[in-house]
């Protein structure tokens, strides 16, 4: 077929094509813009629906009701949720929980048997994942009546640890409580039900009309759109394709601050881990020297764009075990670091592993530059993120920057991460986990009276500072950017999004 001659008319037609397309179906709910009383959020997070396995935080509070909530993301006062009330035995060996009258999305009532089935799964180490360690104190669960269940403990257990477990325990129908089913079909009693899900594309949540909290949630529909690329997420927000972005990178804050509402969540914290099971960091003095060479203020300013707070040991500022004094007594001091380095007699070189996370690379580079000033050569070996994690968990790295979750109300939960385990599975200390650390974790887990707890937390801080394999750097707040008409988004202490209070005005 011969080519159509290019005329002035055809050029003008082509120039008019874009505005024409922009008008094509622009009002359709299937494309851009809002649909009724609903919003669209964008995220780069991966979704999993089994609350026992999930490591994503955007939907857990949508599908599931937990036994309790905390009052705020920095206030650990327990607030009734799935549990209406609970009463501890005087010997702290059991708790009796009364469930709220509520129904699952399927319409079946929430019963004590569902809790018992959930506890049984939580005690199965291979099927529980996020709940296995927090549930370790439970010996058994017994239904008392239709809505009452009693938990017996293996030993006297502090209330804070039980509260944390209740906060982490989702109500799931017994019949659906297995990984195979929950992986694709969430089944809870939370404020939203799943309307549709297309992997890598979108998750559509619709209001649960039978939700137990009257008048909530406020929105009829929330669509979560998935992205691979952070810049695409921001472009989608700026162009109006979505109404908000969840867990966006902190570097976007300045770009978005004037035009959108920014919400900061508690987030996680970054720690600098040194491998005490292999040279050169098997030398405790060297670890202590490096710990003094971490310039937290500069890292917060340059890498976290002024957001976040400095931490010294592995506790967030909201933790009852957080001790700010260590930031002064053991803070950034290159002279002290140089003296410790000389005293260590250790080799003056090590290799830090980094993945593809840009912030971790930037943090390591700042530490590298400061260590160079005192004669220590920290080399950087970049790897693809999954390969980095493999090397980290295989204990093959000399040192690395990695995130640690918030330890919430129970500082004994510090030992959840694989770099912090109080046994030989600790990937940074393997066979040389200090006895004092094992004892301190145990004391923090079992201390019941406030004075006992205070002493246990102090002991935990002391051993972490002395052994210096896990050095706190700064908190890493989560960041949300929202259209100014969207209000009410908040996070819980675990940094999961609470969707029930979100409103859309105008």
């Amino acid at each position, binding site marked *: 077929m011969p080519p*159509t001659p290019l005329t002035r008319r055809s050029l003008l037609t082509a120039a008019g094509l874009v505005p024409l397309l922009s008008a094509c*179906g622009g009002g359709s709910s299937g*494309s851009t813009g809002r649909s009724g009383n609903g919003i669209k959020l964008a995220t780069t997070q991966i979704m999993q629906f089994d609350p026992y396995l999930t490591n994503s935080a955007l939907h857990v509070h949508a599908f599931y009701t937990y036994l309790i909530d905390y009052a705020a993301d920095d206030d650990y006062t327990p607030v009734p949720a799935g549990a209406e009330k609970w009463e501890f035995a005087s010997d702290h060996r059991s708790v009796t929980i009364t469930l709220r009258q509520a129904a699952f999305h399927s319409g079946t009532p929430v019963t004590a048997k569902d809790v018992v089935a959930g506890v049984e799964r939580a005690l199965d*180490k291979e099927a529980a994942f996020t709940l296995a360690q927090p549930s370790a104190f439970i010996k058994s669960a017994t239904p008392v009546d239709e809505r009452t269940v009693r938990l017996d403990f293996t030993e006297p257990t502090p209330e804070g640890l039980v509260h944390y477990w209740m906060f982490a325990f989702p109500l799931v129908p017994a019949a659906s409580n297995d990984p195979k089913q929950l992986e694709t079909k969430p089944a809870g009693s939370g404020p939203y039900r799943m309307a549709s899900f297309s992997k*890598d594309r979108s998750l559509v949540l619709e209001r649960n009309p039978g939700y137990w909290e009257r008048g909530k949630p406020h929105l009829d529909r929330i669509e979560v759109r998935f992205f691979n690329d952070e810049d695409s997420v921001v472009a989608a927000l700026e*162009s109006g394709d*979505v109404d908000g972005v969840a867990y966006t990178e902190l570097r976007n804050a300045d770009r978005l601050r004037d035009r959108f509402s920014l919400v900061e969540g508690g987030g996680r914290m970054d720690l600098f881990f040194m491998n005490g099971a292999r040279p050169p960091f098997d030398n405790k003095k060297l670890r202590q020297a490096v710990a003094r060479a971490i310039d937290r203020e500069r890292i917060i300013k340059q890498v976290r764009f002024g957001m976040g707070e400095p931490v010294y040991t592995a506790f967030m500022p909201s933790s009852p075990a957080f001790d700010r004094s260590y930031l002064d007594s053991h803070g950034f001091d290159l002279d002290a670091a140089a003296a410790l380095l000389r005293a260590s007699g250790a080799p003056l070189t090590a290799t830090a592993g980094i993945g593809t996370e840009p912030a971790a690379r930037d943090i390591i580079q700042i530490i590298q530059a400061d260590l160079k000033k005192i004669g220590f050569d920290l080399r950087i070996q970049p*790897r693809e993120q999954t390969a980095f994690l493999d090397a980290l968990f295989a204990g093959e790295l000399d040192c690395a920057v990695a995130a640690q979750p918030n330890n919430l109300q129970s500082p004994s939960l510090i030992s959840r991460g694989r770099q912090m385990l109080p046994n030989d599975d600790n990937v940074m200390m393997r066979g040389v986990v200090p006895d004092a650390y094992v004892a301190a974790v145990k004391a923090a887990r079992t201390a019941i009276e406030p004075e006992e707890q205070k002493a246990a937390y102090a002991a935990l801080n002391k051993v972490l500072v002395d052994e210096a394999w896990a050095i706190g750097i700064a908190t890493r707040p989560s960041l949300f950017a929202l259209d100014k008409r969207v209000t009410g988004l908040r996070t819980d202490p675990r940094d999961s999004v609470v969707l029930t209070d979100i409103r859309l005005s105008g």
Partner: protein
Amino acid sequence: MYAYLVRRLLQFAVVLLLGSIAVWAFVFALPGDPATVLLGPDASDAELAATRARLGLDESVAGQYLTWLGHALSGDLGTSFHSDQSVVDVLRERVPATAQLAVMGMVLTLAIAVPAGVVVALRPRSVLGRAFQAYLTGGLAIPAFWLGLLLIIVLAVQSRLLPATSDYVPFWEDAGQALRHTILPAIALAVPSSAVLARFVATSLGEIMTRDYIRTARAKGLPERSVIRGHALRNAALPTVTVVGMQLGGFVGGAVAIEAVFNYPGLGRLLYTAIGERDYVVVQGGVLFVVAAFLCLNLIVDVLYAYLDPRIRLL
């Protein structure tokens, strides 16, 4: 012709088998553990081992391949580690999206490349010819993903004329929405490929216009338009068809960057995500589909070539 087709189909099967072995070997050579990606950094060794066993990753690589091959021969390409969805279903969802984008990109490519090539070949010193030459140089120099970002900034973020992120809306369901969501990634794909194609058309046409049979056609008194349409363009189409086939194959399998930039839910983005998640069976199924699509397109091009040029059938 039939013998030629049978020979090509046998080659097709062998290449597909070798391709599947190569992809499997390549995917397993990637460092990183799918169980770690699936469970996150806080999982214990016991949980990771249980997940590996559940996914069948505790078998040898060869054993896993043979198991996969056995299932694949009966049409079962496995189940995604992450979504528990069958790979066939995942491909069924993504391939139409990529096909729609590829077709749209190719239509735009041809719409630009053919007139540009003809003008550059026949009127190189005209204003339009010079403008097209500038376009060809720019089109070759600009990376598609960068052009995509520019299009997003100008047409989506600043002017809000079109969506910054694309979604798949089947053309037959809502043509307006389909165009609206596909036009920007299609332009980003079409600009560099049209520059390549236009050069082929221009070179090929330029060379043909000097041939004796063109001079003969002109000497017979045929109008110039008939000479170009009836004699020159048809012969110039031969090498162009090969390039179009390769470019279409490239659009199907190689639009990874563009799909990622526009968040377009096609095959490229599926592979991009699956590689990051170490979702081996999805990577294997997706890459094999791309290989098969490329082979099919090559086969069609070769058959078309054989149809257009009878001499090829004798080879």
